[in-house]
């Protein structure tokens, strides 16, 4: 039992968004009626509005990535629940630019349907709307899963790269193509040694015996298909990185972007240790991570776990990744 510091379970998300907008008033604006966050500053050359969204509980994603060089708007749903099509529609109207609006959608049925309904409304309104579907989770890559791979940690990298590309003035067709290509070379794998606590009850979403971990978790507290003994972090990272590299097969001259991501309640001490191990795996295989991020970027409330994301950066992708960004959660 671990009670949340909240006025009510229903108030958790709107209260946080009000505070978030107050804390970052120089960067973002929050519309509490229609439930979306917009950027105060965008590059003048940007022709396409970038919009993302999904359930809350993954902070700093998505609202934390609204700002110059990244998202023009984000619509957070309730905890782990898709935003309503109305939020997405209204946010899209606010974010659309001369060449329309691009939706960056994680592959979940609810998100796909609600973003899809909003896209039909936008089309009826004469606004061009395209979609980049993020489905980077290697653990859900199975013939038996009809819904396909889940969208997880790689989303932040995709949003950053598309932000740089949008600032460079790419049109909506080029951005859609680029985003789809980037996703196809990005995979994530996550593990957890304890579930998150539910905001409504304060209880853990599931129990794990001490010394065991879930291998292949998502970001909604769903269990993995495998439970295994918790071994040394070196052996664990070797397994995870090995699986990602076997899938991605980067060429020796291809730059790799690495993300070591905390899922909510793993310490920095651990995350840097994990990054060190990942570096050794890549060194041993002759792969040098060209860029990296270490920290909490895409969380699952207070799940005790982490994810590894590797992204093989094609031509120009690294330049878009390096382009300036100034958002509440990402800045360079």
């Amino acid at each position, binding site marked *: 039992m671990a009670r949340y510091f909240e006025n009510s379970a229903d108030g958790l998300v709107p209260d946080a968004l009000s505070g978030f907008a107050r804390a970052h008033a120089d960067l973002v604006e929050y519309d509490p009626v229609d439930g979306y966050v917009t950027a105060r500053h965008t590059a003048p050359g940007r022709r396409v509005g970038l919009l993302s969204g999904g359930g809350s509980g993954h902070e700093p994603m998505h609202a934390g990535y609204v700002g110059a060089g990244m998202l023009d708007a984000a619509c957070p749903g309730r905890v782990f629940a898709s935003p309503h*099509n109305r939020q997405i529609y209204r946010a899209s109207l606010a974010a659309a630019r001369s060449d329309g609006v691009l939706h960056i959608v994680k592959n979940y049925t609810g998100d796909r349907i609600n973003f*899809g*309904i909003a896209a*039909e409304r936008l089309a*009826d309104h004469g606004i061009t709307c395209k979609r980049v579907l993020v489905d980077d989770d290697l653990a859900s890559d199975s013939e038996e899963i009809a819904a396909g791979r889940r969208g997880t940690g790689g989303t932040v990298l995709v949003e950053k790269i598309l932000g740089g590309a949008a600032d460079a003035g790419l049109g909506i067709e080029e951005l859609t193509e680029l985003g789809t290509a980037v996703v196809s070379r990005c995979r994530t794998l996550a593990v957890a040694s304890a579930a998150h606590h539910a905001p409504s009850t304060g209880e853990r979403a599931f129990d794990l015996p001490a010394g065991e971990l879930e291998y292949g978790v998502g970001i909604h507290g769903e269990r993995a298909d495998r439970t295994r003994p918790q071994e040394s972090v070196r052996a664990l990272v070797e397994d995870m990185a090995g699986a990602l590299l076997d899938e991605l097969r980067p060429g020796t001259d291809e730059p790799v972007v690495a993300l070591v991501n905390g899922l909510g309640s793993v310490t920095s001490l651990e995350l840097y240790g994990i990054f060190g191990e990942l570096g050794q795996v890549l060194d041993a295989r002759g792969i040098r991570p060209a860029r990296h991020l270490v920290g909490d970027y895409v969380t699952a409330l207070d799940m005790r776990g982490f994810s590894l994301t590797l992204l093989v950066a094609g031509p120009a992708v690294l330049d878009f990744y390096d382009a300036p960004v100034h958002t509440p959660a990402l800045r360079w």
Partner: protein
Amino acid sequence: MTTPAFDGTLTRDWMHRFADSVYATEAELTALDQRVGDGDFGTNLTAGVRAAGHLLDAGGAEAGPSETLGCMATAFLDEIGGTSGPLFGLLFQALSRSASGNGLTSDGLAEGVEQGLAAIRRVGDAAPGDKTLVDALTPAAAALRGASGGTPPDRALSLAADAAWQGVHDTAGLSARMGRASYLGERVTGIPDPGAVGVALLFASAAGPVHTLAPYLPGGG
């Protein structure tokens, strides 16, 4: 000769009768959805027609058929949770577009329902046979297309209603691939899809409100 068309008043009358049908059958829709879904479909559909009623009242007596159907679209898209309710909104959105100009003709009905069906299929990724509202909307669209030309809209809608009820019957024989019903496997076979029933109610209400589902459902529902 002018093509027979629903004007604003006739379109509004149809929508009010649809609302009456939904209110009258809410409990039956809920009972159906408790067996195959989340159990919230009756409530969501009722919330949709209630929100639409407020918008139709605010629109006044001068609103044309396109504005009237646009009010329905806004209500179902903006105010309803779940998935099926907003999908009805997409149907109304397409009908509103096809009714702009000369009123709602049988050609406009065919065009609007086909466009609405296409949008719903794009969004929901559902095909005929998946035990969804698509299974009632697809035969209704075909019936409307077959009836187009100079057919009066009320006659075309009556044919669409017959086709939609047949589609409802057919969903009872299917197991589900989409939504929560898809986890229930063979246990939902024999039970018609509530979303498909909602579609049939819409078309059937053109002739008059439906007071109970029992006569229309296989095995008494």
